[in-house]
């Protein structure tokens, strides 16, 4: 499920630190060396490397990286090197501070991570930013989006398989009713989407399809320009089919003129150690082209190298 490739015998942490330090030495930077180390270590190793590097050279590894490399490559390497919880905290903070209705990082963090991972992100947020995640989201997001996003990121959902089927039927009916009255930001819709467990939500969406003969997202397409509706659809897709949700983000990022590097980096860096393999399969299925080829076509040099390394294609 993960695409991250780690060598069968991982070199000792001290050796990795030395290699990285060597990569920074002298004029220029040995980007290939950086990639060959960092892009092939799991989260525990990367944490150990950061700690050892700071002890050995008196400087934070991420700070050193920031000094040596720049632009899209730097962002990709730094995001990747962070631990998953910190990474989510950083992405959440970036989005909250400069929030705009099309933002998806908060939705992804709240809906594709397990409840434990979301909570770890909130703890990492405290440590790094000295405020709570919900505090910043509430302070920077306004209107209906705030009503939706604050409870979304504050939830600590039940993680188990227990489902109340009759409740799923009745809540599917409630959703249908509110959607039909075009009350998209109704408190009931928000309550159901932001508090029910994933298992319960899946049962509810299934019941919706059974009762009304089409999936719930079909009813949320009334206005293609409505960003709030798009956000609701994104939340629902993140629960039902996260791999296809991410596939679409990648497809839109790589397609058309230009490339949306922020989205591309975010998806690859956050999913490489989780379910990027499934996303690759979804991409191949939908686009008849392997994801690696599409990435190689649209990106260049070191940025391309690290993305391909994280995709497991080296």
């Amino acid at each position: 499920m993960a695409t991250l490739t780690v060598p069968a015998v991982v070199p000792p942490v001290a050796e990795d630190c030395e290699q990285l330090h060597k990569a920074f030495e002298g004029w220029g930077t040995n980007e290939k060396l950086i990639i060959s180390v960092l892009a092939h270590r799991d989260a525990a190793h990367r944490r150990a490397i950061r700690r050892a590097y700071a002890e050995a050279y008196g400087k934070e590894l991420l700070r050193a990286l920031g000094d040596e490399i720049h632009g899209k490559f730097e962002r990709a390497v730094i995001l990747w090197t962070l631990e998953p919880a910190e990474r989510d905290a950083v992405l959440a903070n970036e989005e909250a501070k400069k929030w705009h209705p099309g933002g998806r990082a908060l939705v992804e963090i709240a809906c594709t991570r397990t409840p434990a991972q979301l909570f770890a992100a909130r703890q990492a947020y405290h440590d790094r930013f000295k405020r709570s995640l919900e505090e910043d989201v509430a302070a920077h997001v306004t209107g209906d989006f705030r009503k939706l996003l604050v409870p979304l990121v504050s939830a600590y959902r039940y993680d188990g398989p227990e489902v109340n089927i009759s409740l799923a039927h009745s809540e599917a009916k409630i959703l249908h009713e509110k959607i039909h009255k075009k009350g998209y930001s109704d408190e009931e819709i928000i309550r159901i989407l932001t508090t029910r467990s994933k298992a319960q939500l899946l049962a509810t969406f299934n019941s919706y399809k059974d009762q009304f003969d089409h999936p719930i997202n079909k009813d949320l397409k009334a206005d293609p320009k409505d960003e709030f509706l798009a956000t609701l659809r994104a939340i629902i897709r993140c629960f039902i089919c996260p791999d296809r949700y991410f596939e679409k983000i990648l497809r839109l990022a790589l397609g058309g003129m230009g490339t949306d590097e922020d989205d591309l980096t975010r998806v690859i860096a956050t999913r490489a150690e989780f379910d990027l393999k499934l996303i690759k399969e979804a991409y191949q299925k939908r686009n008849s082209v392997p994801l690696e080829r599409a990435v190689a076509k649209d990106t260049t040099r070191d940025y391309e190298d690290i993305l391909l390394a994280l995709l497991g294609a080296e």
Partner: protein
Amino acid sequence: MGDEVQQLTRAFSGTVSICHRNETCFDRSIILQLLLPLMPSLIIISCDDQLNAKRIEGLGGLGVDEPTMVSALARWRKQPEKRSGFRKGFPGFFKSHGDIDRCEEEYMLHLAAEFARFKNLMVLWAMHPWERDARLAHHVLHQHHPPAILVEVASTRSADELLGARRAYHQLFHHSLEEDVAYRAKDKPYCNLLVGLVSAYRYEGPRVNEEVAREEAKALGAAVKSAAAGGKKLAAVAENGEVVRILTTRSKPHLVETFKYYKEMHGRRIEEDLVGHGHGEEEETLVETVLCLAAPARYFSKVMEGALRDGADHHAKEALTRVAVTRSDHDMDEIRDAYLEQFGVKLEDAIAAKAHGHYRDALLSLVGAHHQQ
């Protein structure tokens, strides 16, 4: 014998019933003379056929005096006439039906609650604090205990304690706490406030942004003013998005600063502005939130006083056990100080005056006093 009867009736939760109109209650009037100077919690009720259950609730103290009861067993062994005299001397508990003095149903229920007080305390004490808070929250949602308990649990625990309680709630009830709160409170005006409170994972460090605190104090003042000016009930304040945002997401040190600025700007403490606008559940929930966040020791001391005063109802009395057990390891010293400051009496003295037996001793131990019997 009058002496011993009096002792035993007092042991049964300090309730004594005296018939003051019926001439046949001749013996009882003697007991009345004996008892009056000796019993601080003497309640007089009439010898009507139907004892009013509500009046029984406010009777006597809390808990039962187990040692006295046990000693009566020994002293009156093989003396059924003493027991019979006791039954005749306690018409609140027993009602004469010809040869037999029957037990009163309402009183039996009352006794069951009083005997159970010590048991409930011990069970609550033994539980893991996370399970304890999860069960307390569940009782609010599924057994209609007062919502103040939910506010209390969400606002006075540390961020990690609240997280632990939420985790315990998952394991015990297979739902998330916020899911159940959102569902049960969905038609109430304070729904968003409660859901926000139980979902919060507040930053716990000391850093406070003074400017933001000042702005937010202004925003709170504006919300209160507009509700009062519009003649709306304070439910409008509880629904105000800014108020909910500030109260449910900001860190506690930040809120303390914000409330300080509020007092500077408006001349009164925010809880004073919120109180006195009616006593609906909505107003109380908001006031409790502010009190719990700003000054938990004073809040808890008020709750305890509410449990110890005359006429306290069933839920108010249960609060005594809850506060004693849940705060004993945390801020009980501050609560004792606040109690003395607010009510002029030592908390341990107030408890000793109202409670009996093992329950009293348990409370005194939890409260941290060393009261000599």
